[in-house]
């Protein structure tokens, strides 16, 4: 695209230049990094010395700019780089950020804003109030379009193997929208009940709060949300989808992977049949996880989420042949067989009665086939979660003694620490550095285990120190039952002759598509990954469903990304951007004492109360800003919100460039002796301007600490200007006048307030300014010549201002005020200096403003021929001067373009 002029920065100067050039008949492209043009001026209250409403002056300019036939604006866009071509024109690469809203469709109605569940500090109100993550920047924004503030994906959602939007449902619970939270979960994973009990919750490890008081209790919040929903809905609210496809899918295994795939495919209307070897569906959920952790009615209810879609489950059917399924007319097969087998230890006596493998024991115990172990001694061999579960189950079945035998130390145990501790609390003996050597029977029945002591040697491949047997340390333990939980093995035995199998006995698949060596046959879950967590298996099922659907639709499986997530939000950015984060402790989970809980197989963990759940959800820091709860998508009447919208890189050419990137405000935190950020009633003038503006954040002018109407306000001039201690020796030109303006406005809003302005020199130099200053003095604004040394907090949030009374000659003084406004200065926006390639360096002056190389007779011209600086890019300027300067930049650019065109 070719333009006559590229204008960088859509504040008042950029708009003025654009409009003027547009009126000359030149084509201008205006780039603005914010979602609205208007810059800082439109946020101001009234402007000196005429006291016109800033919006009233800005909005018509903004409207003219966007409607001007010769002006194109690009908001939420940034310059990557600008380089000069050989022919004198400039080539610019522009990054148009994704706002996740289609501006052509958005009507600016604000429905998304109302629906959004995330509140963030409102930049346009300088952090005094919140705006939503889906928001319209401010009421007069141009274009008046919504923007979704997504700064990467929140860590909790990002780490979930099943792609469950943890941040999303947490923010929905926080807003009291529990059903919506449940439905959001169901978008990604259909077994929320099981996950809410038995998920190992990688989200909580990733949670940014875990670096503070402890992570948000995401899983328990989910538990609340699920219980809340299930108690009201014993059946799913939906039935078989309408558009039924004629394609048929067979799924082998009804564990989490199989159920997840069935659910996602079922929603698409496929005919699905799940074949299950066992008596009941659920796989590990039913047979491995003890009821005290995962009640079986929850598993039943979870499974209804799948069967309600018309998915059939045929139990007691062991499938051993893929070909037979094909023969039965299935178009595709998904093998989700799990890891039901246990590795053998190959020890003498391993086949004795009384020696069981982990899954054998667990499935019998969980289905009541073993229920009483009174008086028995049980040894569990292994250190993973699959060892803890049998130990704790055995205790609940009355076992007199339960021993967990592990060959390394507790530190090396793969089981979760809290699980180990729970087992010990409930009475299990942990015997570390021991390994069985043989099982000794009597009449074919186990009576003893001979055990060998170990010590730790050199680290092995896994980084853990290898256990080495201690010679001669054999001794035996009397036992009635031994459970071998040394690791689970994929149930792939039946398919070794049909499909390619890896050395670890898992199916060999394409890791992206989960396709096996036979097209149309897919495999996933533990049978592919080896023993993993429920949520991993659910993720596998979802992935398989995605590719199976493509396969059945005849679409290519190559070069398509199944799960495209934003990159993870940076925890440290979050912690530094959120301002003061108040301390909020975790809710401690109350469990019955171990002595009681072993007496019953009832669920140990109690559900959070509504209050607890909402409190806990409120601890969320909204790391990625947007929680991806999707409420905005649903709320938008114009279907304008698209989370998959991508940023664009646009290349344009222009004959001339105007840099109107404006200024930065001095960061008042840097003047530490003024207490900004520490004392709530010390505010910046920009905040004060918002407080007195027609679109003020509160209905009245209030002080922040307690909402009191202030009645004794101080302005501290030259905060960040004329001050070598913060390295800005020059004057910011506008602070005297805007402070006087604010003083006059406050006198209107709060007629009883006393206002003191502490100054060094009052610089009322522009047209009508001196008269304006005089007017303020006549209105009763109290002017004190003297620089403020420091500000201290006194009672009731009031502040003591220490200053030198120069005119009164009484030396150092202090005065109490109930609100202090720091009249912060202007600093250069140094972004401007990096717009151009190194070959064409935009020179800066001694204060890092863009340098005007001959300001006396060639104002706005910079060190690069054809590049002009407008407004506060080259110096602090008030609005009238900025506008004049922008007009001059337009004349200069037009002249340059005219000459350039003539020379071509």
């Amino acid at each position, binding site marked *: 695209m070719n333009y006559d002029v590229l204008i960088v920065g859509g504040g008042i100067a950029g708009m003025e230049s654009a409009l003027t050039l547009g009126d000359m008949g030149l084509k201008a492209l205006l780039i603005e990094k914010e979602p609205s043009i208007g810059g800082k001026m439109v946020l101001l209250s009234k402007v000196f010395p005429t006291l016109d409403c800033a919006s009233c002056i800005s909005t018509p300019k903004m409207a003219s700019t966007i409607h001007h036939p010769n002006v194109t604006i690009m908001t939420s866009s940034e310059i990557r780089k600008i380089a000069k071509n050989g022919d004198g024109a400039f080539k610019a690469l522009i990054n148009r950020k994704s706002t996740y809203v289609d501006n052509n*469709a958005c009507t600016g109605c604000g429905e998304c804003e109302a629906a959004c569940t995330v509140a963030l500090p409102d930049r346009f109100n300088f952090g005094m109030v919140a705006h939503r993550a889906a928001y319209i920047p401010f009421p007069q924004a141009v274009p*008046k379009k919504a923007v979704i503030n997504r700064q990467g994906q929140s860590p909790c959602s990002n780490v979930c193997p099943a792609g469950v939007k943890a941040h999303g449902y947490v923010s929905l619970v926080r807003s009291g929208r529990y059903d919506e939270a449940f439905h959001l979960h169901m978008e990604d994973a259909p077994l929320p009940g099981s996950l809410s009990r038995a998920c190992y919750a990688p989200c909580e490890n990733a949670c940014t709060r875990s670096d503070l008081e402890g992570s948000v209790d995401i899983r328990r919040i989910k538990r609340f949300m699920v219980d809340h929903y299930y108690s009201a809905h014993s059946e799913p609210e939906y039935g078989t989808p309408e558009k039924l496809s004629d394609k048929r899918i067979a799924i082998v295994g009804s564990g989490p992977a199989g159920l997840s795939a069935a659910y996602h495919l079922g929603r698409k209307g496929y005919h699905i049949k799940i074949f299950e070897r066992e008596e009941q569906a659920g796989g590990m959920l039913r047979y491995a996880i003890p009821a005290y952790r995962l009640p079986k009615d929850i598993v039943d209810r979870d499974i209804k989420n799948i069967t309600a879609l018309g998915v059939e489950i045929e139990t007691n059917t062991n499938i051993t042949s893929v070909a037979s399924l094909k023969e039965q007319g299935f178009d595709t097969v998904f093998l989700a067989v799990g890891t039901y087998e246990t590795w053998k230890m190959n020890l003498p006596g391993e086949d004795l009665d009384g020696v069981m493998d982990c899954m054998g024991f667990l499935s019998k115990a969980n289905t009541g086939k073993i229920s009483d172990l009174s008086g028995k001694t049980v040894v569990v061999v292994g250190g993973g979660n699959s060892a803890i579960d049998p130990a704790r189950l055995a205790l609940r079945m009355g076992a007199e003694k339960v021993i967990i035998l592990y060959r390394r130390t507790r530190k090396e145990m793969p089981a979760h620490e809290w699980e180990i501790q729970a087992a010990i609390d409930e009475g299990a003996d942990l015997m570390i550095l021991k390994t069985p050597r043989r099982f000794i029977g009597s009449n074919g029945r186990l009576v003893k285990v001979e055990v060998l002591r170990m010590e730790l040697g050199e680290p092995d491949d896994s980084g853990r120190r290898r256990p080495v047997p201690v010679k001669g340390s054999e001794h035996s333990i009397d036992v009635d039952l031994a459970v071998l939980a040394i690791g689970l093995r994929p149930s792939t035995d039946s398919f070794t002759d049909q499909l390619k199998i890896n050395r670890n006995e898992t199916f060999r698949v394409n890791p992206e598509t989960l396709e096996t060596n036979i097209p149309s046959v897919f495999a996933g879950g533990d049978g592919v990954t080896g023993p993993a967590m429920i949520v991993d298996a659910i993720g596998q099922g979802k992935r398989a469903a995605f590719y199976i659907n493509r396969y059945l639709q005849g679409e290519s499986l190559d070069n398509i990304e199944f799960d495209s997530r934003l990159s993870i939000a940076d925890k440290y950015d979050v912690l530094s951007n959120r301002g003061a984060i108040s301390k909020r402790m975790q809710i401690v989970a109350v469990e019955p004492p171990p002595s009681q809980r072993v007496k019953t197989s009832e669920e140990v963990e109690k559900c959070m109360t509504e209050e607890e759940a909402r409190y806990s959800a409120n601890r969320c820091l909204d790391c990625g800003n947007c929680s991806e709860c999707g409420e905005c998508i649903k709320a938008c009447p114009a279907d304008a919100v698209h989370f998959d919208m991508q940023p664009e890189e646009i290349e344009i050419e222009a004959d001339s460039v105007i840099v109107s990137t404006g200024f930065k405000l001095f960061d008042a935190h840097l003047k530490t002796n003024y207490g900004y950020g520490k004392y709530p009633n010390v505010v910046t003038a920009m905040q004060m301007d918002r407080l007195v503006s027609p679109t003020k954040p509160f209905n009245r002018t209030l002080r922040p600490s307690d909402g009191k109407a202030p009645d004794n306000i101080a302005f501290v001039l030259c905060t960040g200007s004329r001050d070598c201690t913060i390295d800005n*020796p020059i004057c910011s030109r506008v602070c005297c006048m805007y402070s006087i303006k604010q003083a006059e406005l406050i006198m209107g809003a709060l007629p009883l307030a006393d206002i003191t302005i502490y100054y060094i020199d009052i610089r009322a130099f*522009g047209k009508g300014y001196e008269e304006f200053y005089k007017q303020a003095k006549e209105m009763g604004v109290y002017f004190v010549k003297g620089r403020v040394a420091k500000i201290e907090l006194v009672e009731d949030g009031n502040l003591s201002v220490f200053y030198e009374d120069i005119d009164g000659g009484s030396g150092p003084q202090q005065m109490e005020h109930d609100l202090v406004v720091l009249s912060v200065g202007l600093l250069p926006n140094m972004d401007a200096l990096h717009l151009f390639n190194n070959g064409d360096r935009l020179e800066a002056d001694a204060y890092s403003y863009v340098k005007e190389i001959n300001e006396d*007779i060639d104002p706005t011209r910079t060190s690069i021929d054809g590049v002009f600086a407008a407004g506060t890019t080259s110096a602090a300027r008030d609005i009238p001067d900025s506008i004049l300067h922008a007009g*001059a930049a337009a*004349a*200069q650019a037009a002249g340059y373009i005219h000459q350039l065109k003539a020379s071509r």
Partner: protein
Amino acid sequence: MSDKRRIGVYTCHCGGNISDYVDVEQVRDAVKDDEEVIISKNVMFACSDATQQEMIEDIEREKLDGLVVASCSPTLHLQTFKAVAQRANLNPYQYTQVNLREQCSWTHRSNIEKATEKGVKLVKAGIARTRLTEPLTNIRIETKPKTLVIGAGVAGLRAALALADLGLAVFIVEKESEVGGWTRKWGKMFPNNRSGNDTIKYLLDQVKQRENITLFTDTELIEKGGNVGDFSIKIRMKEGETVSLDVGAIIVATGFDSYEPFDGEYGYGLSGVVTLPQFKEMVDKSNGSLNFNGHLIKNIAYIYCVGSRQSEDGDIENPNLYCSRYCCSAAVHTASCVAEVDSDINQYHLYRDMRTYGKYETLFKNAGEKKSLFIRFDDESLPEVEESNGALIVRVNDALDGGEEIEIGVDLIVLVTGMTPRENDNLTNVLKIPVGLDGFYNEIHPKLRPVETVVDGVFIAGVSQGPKTLAESVTSSLSAVSKSAALLMKGYVDLEPFIAEVNTDKCTWCGECEKSCPYGAVEKVICDTKEVAAIIPALCKGGGVCIPDCPENAIEIKGYTDQQIKSMIDVLAKEVA
């Protein structure tokens, strides 16, 4: 108009801004049964692209000949909906904006019922007006690609160069025989230490190189006729010869007068009391040492704000209340130049507020490092100057030291004089542009239109508008260039047709309207042997002051006819049924 009108009415929610306080559905329904209202709709945001598109489709499908949008203030979206009408091939002057937000919902937040009642009336009034609208056409004026620049100081010369570089012809008219104004007279100027004289030489040289610039010195503007884009100008040269020029735009860059202190003001008139421009000339001409009347100068006092920031309550007639902006920086810069000539000179600066704004702060700092001493005096106790035994003494209460009175004996007193508006009454009368309370030319709006005047096509540049530094003057003159170029490069201007119209049947040419018009837009013409008033379209601003002055009720403003206004009043005054 006998035919029934076909009007579309769109009542906007403004996302709650209106609908929270006005029952917009009730408003919609209150007018929907009007037989001339074909469409009455509620819309969430009338201004959104989607709704605009919907309006266009409605207008085209239903062949609407009138549009009423009841939303916000016309200042915000009048142009938006005019454009909508235009895109739908509806004459934009057959659309009426009803301000339901600023004039209704926002002002009556506490009473929805009454606000709704008012809303209904406002919309009905809008419909009433729309019924009486007629298609109007903008007045298009061809522009002359030439600009007249008045004043050949730094602002005028620079403006001329910039215009010429845009391919526009320029005539510069300078009253003096030499170009360059004040700048020509000065050596080193702040902040860049470039010689003013050199700057003017350079600019003049550049002007001479451009064929499309014509410079007239010793020449004055004596007549201005015509209108924006097409002015007829008459200038008179020294010899009395007059020349007529046709130009499209005029840039006024007439500069300033330096304040001339009255006799006795801070000792002015005494030997050794000089103004800042006089002193600058001394410093510029000094050669190794600074002397006055043959004596080496050892001590200088500067008194700031002479002729600026004057008190209203004192004895000065027509005091200058304003700050002259450049003088603080100029004085401290001059002090640094003095220190370069003779670093032993003691310089005492008696100031009120040191207004070395922005980067000029460094000038202040530099002077302070070179034997300049700064003494602040209060507005209430000004310094006094007296001569005693041939020596000059300044007395001042030092505000920085608790107001203690100090006495300084000096060899020279520099009155830091400000800028005053050029005495230019003739020119001001010819141009008919207004001056502000401070006597400088007035812009329309300091932010929206800082170089434009109420006379379309006449722009003000440099210090003619108010005190400025050199760079600021040039900046403002280039800004004036951009506005005049925007006017001329397009080749035409479109003026809104809301101008007066004379009913020649009723008019008896009494001349009252001609007298009342501040823009000279009325002329006498012969119409069918009868003398009547006629309106010059390009000059008429539609101000309407002629209308009440017409004894025959023979004048109306197009687009705002009496009939239209009355129809609106009738509706508003009626009870809502």
